[in-house]
């Protein structure tokens, strides 16, 4: 914990590091909005489909995971930017 505290104090004096940390926070926060809404849509529609046609549940689940995987990639790129900027 001391290591973390000393790192924080050391970085707080450097304006560039402060800007990078702020930017990293915003980058991840903004990158999470779109995929959050998108995954909500995907899963919601998949549940609707499964409730209407339970016999198609297996196929719907596979397609749902594919959709989630594609949507989620955007948020994860935001997370990578967060790591690159923040550390």
């Amino acid at each position: 914990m001391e290591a973390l505290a000393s790192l924080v104090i050391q970085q707080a004096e450097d304006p560039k590091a402060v800007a990078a940390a702020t930017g990293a926070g915003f980058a991840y926060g903004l990158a999470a909005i779109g995929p959050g809404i998108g995954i909500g849509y995907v899963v919601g529609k998949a549940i609707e489909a499964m409730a209407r046609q339970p016999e198609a549940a297996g196929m719907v689940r596979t397609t749902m995971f594919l959709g989630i995987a594609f949507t989620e990639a955007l948020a994860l790129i935001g997370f990578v930017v967060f790591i690159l900027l923040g550390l």
Partner: protein
Amino acid sequence: MLGLDFPPINEVIRWRDLFTSFNKIAIIACLAALIGIAIFLLASRKDPMKAPTGVRNLAETGVEFIEDQIVMQTMGREGLGWTPFLLTLFIFIYLCNLPGIIPILQMPATARMALPLFLAVIVWLIYNAVGFRHNGAKYLTGMVWPHNVPVGMRPLVGLIEFMSNILLRPFSLAVRLFANMLAGHMLLVTFALLSDAMFRAETKELLLKPMGVLPFFMLLFLTVFEVLVGFLQAYIFTILTAVYIGLARHPEH
């Protein structure tokens, strides 16, 4: 080295070498490969005529899962020949993800870019090779100049298809696995550090120390969540590989 103590903060991202260019991540990856090989070698020794028991049960469940849930759902009957490759991929990624929640190890091997990127490059080589083998040069021309699209739209759609096939697919495949595992690892580290700091805080506030239970419960919940994420990411990586191979065989779909 062992996950019993918190490493210095920089080592969460960069691990020290144990000896030249070989660190804990590499050991975990090697162990994952060896355990996967051992399970299936042991399972293959048993008599296939008897009802499966023990390790053979596990192996058969794995094979059946890949066949029913991944190959049949994406490529259909003609893709069954890809089961061994997809099974290897799935078992290896899953066994690499799992150490993230095993005490003492506490480090998923896929939370470093090297492993996901290498796997994604293998997948990229394979699905492009399959495309060229099944469709010849039409694989490339059909990609840049698609015939079932109106003529005016062809350059645009072709450009998008080409970028997505050649650049974005391997990149997103690697980044998805890597970032998911790293994010889970960082969450666990954060809540472990938080509850540790609150339990040991030197303060006169009476409530602060007992409040350390809250991040600890969050840590337990996240550990269970990571079990799910480790499995799901291995599944998604494998199913996307199957989808890409299936698309390379029949690009018109």
